[in-house]
């Protein structure tokens, strides 16, 4: 592809299509070639032919989309990173994917991910880890690591992923791109292979904040097929803000001090100074139950997962192990089909829900969840947005943390509280930390405040001036 095309953001490419300077099929083919040449293991499947003619007047103008393999796509492999679903071709398409296709973003490919979205490094994929385009010896983050790496490396103009405890924001941070976890219910979960249903939410992974808003605008909406979906009360606007005058930013010491690497901390401090230069004010706000958020999360998410993953039993789809009786068939299918992390979480969740332990674990975790939501509510009485690092470290080495699952869980402490409270948060690139690797800055707001978050992120992004082009090679 010409260097010219790859340097365009999705919004810019769409404008060229609409202006008649570029055809949608030419654009699709150029990106298809990039995607097909993937050497990061970011893709699980790439379209082998252009889609039927896209209407150049459609809002997304034919700019192709990379889709996390967790979304069901009719007739196209959808394995959610699991061997138990290898070769599975769903008979229907997820609502979010259908909406984006109808708005003019055809499917470019399906991206690799941690198995059933359980992981922060993509090393839990049943199909091999994804490499980080900034340093191929490092992880891209997870679980939407394939989508993040594809956008960062210029293998896709934009992508969608899902976030349960940080699975959009953390890989966006580690790959130097933008990722938005919307308010719970903003986007339909219909057709998403379920991990933890009270937390899962789909959102965009994009090169900049404008692309993020544009893609998000066409994902949202109530869906009769997902009774927990609400849509957003207001239309998603394309952000234009260049200043932050009058906006109050809360800095929670619990998510910004202990455990944050010095290089990440320095980028974070720099972004706080930029917020002030742009007219925003900073105020310390406390989120006192943050320490318990990881504990609550690692009870609630595995508990819900253990129930959701009961459906993988070798009966209706996916892998079936041959065995003489039904009980053995279930057990052997699940033994062979699930990877280590998925087994660990099913065990943890089953234990937490089992007779005699339910109140001590699941019941208590749900009460902690109330406390965490209350913490945010009282913080947002004083400030408009909360700002933190997205991840306490830059991208770590492949294999570096696989021996210690608890350490891997604990590294999610900046991103886990928001889904527990159902509130939206964005990660934008803030600069470079350790080893000259990207650092993400997270902005969180009250439920349904996506427009405020996008406006503020747009202004901050302009002041930061992050250059992601080196990762596109």
């Amino acid at each position, binding site marked *: 592809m010409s260097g010219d095309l790859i340097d365009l953001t999705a919004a810019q490419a769409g404008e060229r299509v609409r202006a008649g300077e570029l055809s949608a099929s030419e654009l699709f083919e150029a990106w298809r070639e990039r995607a097909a040449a993937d050497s990061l293991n970011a893709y699980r499947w790439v379209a082998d032919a252009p889609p039927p003619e896209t209407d150049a007047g459609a809002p997304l103008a034919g700019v192709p989309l990379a889709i996390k393999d967790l979304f069901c796509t009719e007739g196209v492999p959808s394995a959610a990173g699991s061997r138990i679903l290898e070769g599975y*071709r769903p*008979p*229907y398409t997820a609502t979010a994917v259908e909406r984006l296709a109808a708005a003019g973003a055809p499917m470019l490919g399906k991206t690799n991910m941690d198995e059933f979205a359980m992981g922060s490094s993509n090393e839990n994929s049943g199909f091999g880890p994804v490499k980080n385009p900034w340093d191929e010896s490092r992880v891209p983050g997870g679980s939407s690591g394939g989508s993040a790496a594809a956008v960062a490396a210029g293998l896709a103009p934009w992508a969608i992923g899902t976030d349960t405890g940080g699975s959009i924001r953390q890989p966006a941070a580690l790959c130097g791109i933008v990722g938005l976890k919307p308010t*719970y219910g903003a986007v339909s979960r219909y057709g998403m292979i379920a991990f933890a249903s*009270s937390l899962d939410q789909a959102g965009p992974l994009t090169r900049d904040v404008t692309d993020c808003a544009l893609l998000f605008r066409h994902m949202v909406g109530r869906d*009769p097929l997902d*009774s*927990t979906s*609400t849509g957003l009360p207001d239309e998603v606007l394309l952000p234009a803000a260049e200043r932050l005058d009058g906006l109050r930013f809360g800095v929670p010491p619990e998510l910004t001090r202990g455990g944050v690497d010095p290089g990440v901390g320095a980028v974070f401090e720099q972004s706080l100074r930029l917020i002030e230069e742009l007219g925003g004010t900073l105020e310390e706000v406390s989120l006192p*139950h943050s*320490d*318990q958020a*990881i*504990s609550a999360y*690692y*009870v609630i998410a595995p508990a819900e997962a253990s129930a959701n993953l*009961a459906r993988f039993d*070798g*009966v*209706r*789809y*996916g892998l*079936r192990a041959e065995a003489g*009786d*039904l*009980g053995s*068939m*279930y*057990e*052997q299918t*699940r*033994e062979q089909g*699930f990877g280590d992390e998925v*087994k*660990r979480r*099913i*065990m*943890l969740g*089953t*234990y937490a829900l*089992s007779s005699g332990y339910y109140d*001590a*674990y699941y019941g*208590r*975790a*749900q*009460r*902690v*969840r*109330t*406390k965490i*939501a209350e913490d945010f509510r009282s913080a947002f009485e004083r400030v408009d947005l909360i700002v933190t690092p997205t991840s306490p470290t830059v991208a770590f080495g492949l294999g570096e943390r696989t021996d210690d*699952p*608890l350490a891997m*869980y*604990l590294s999610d402490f900046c991103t886990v509280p928001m889904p*527990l*409270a*159902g509130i939206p948060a964005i990660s934008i690139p803030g600069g470079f930390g350790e080893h000259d690797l990207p650092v993400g800055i997270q902005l969180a707001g009250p*439920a349904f405040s996506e427009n405020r978050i996008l406006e503020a992120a747009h202004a901050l992004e302009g002041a930061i001036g992050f250059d992601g082009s080196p990762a596109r090679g």
Partner: protein
Amino acid sequence: MIDRDQVLHVARLARLRLTEEEVERMTGELSSILDHIETISALDLDDTAPTSHVVEMENVLRPDEPRPSLPRERAFEQAPDTDGVGFRVPSPGA
């Protein structure tokens, strides 16, 4: 803390067969994770209601009208074994 017998019990509940090596490893890993999770037992939560759903919603209702479902042959397309009428599985009692 979780011991070996509990791991085997939970694995049975979850319909997971674990190898001897997995039982060993899982016992250690789950114990350290559960020890960490114990931090929530220190909080006073007696007056706190549990949250099962974060967005306040009343019942979501729809008209009870028939609509097309997935055609049977489409539903069977991905089945490991079918006789065209149902999903075929090994006998439970073998």
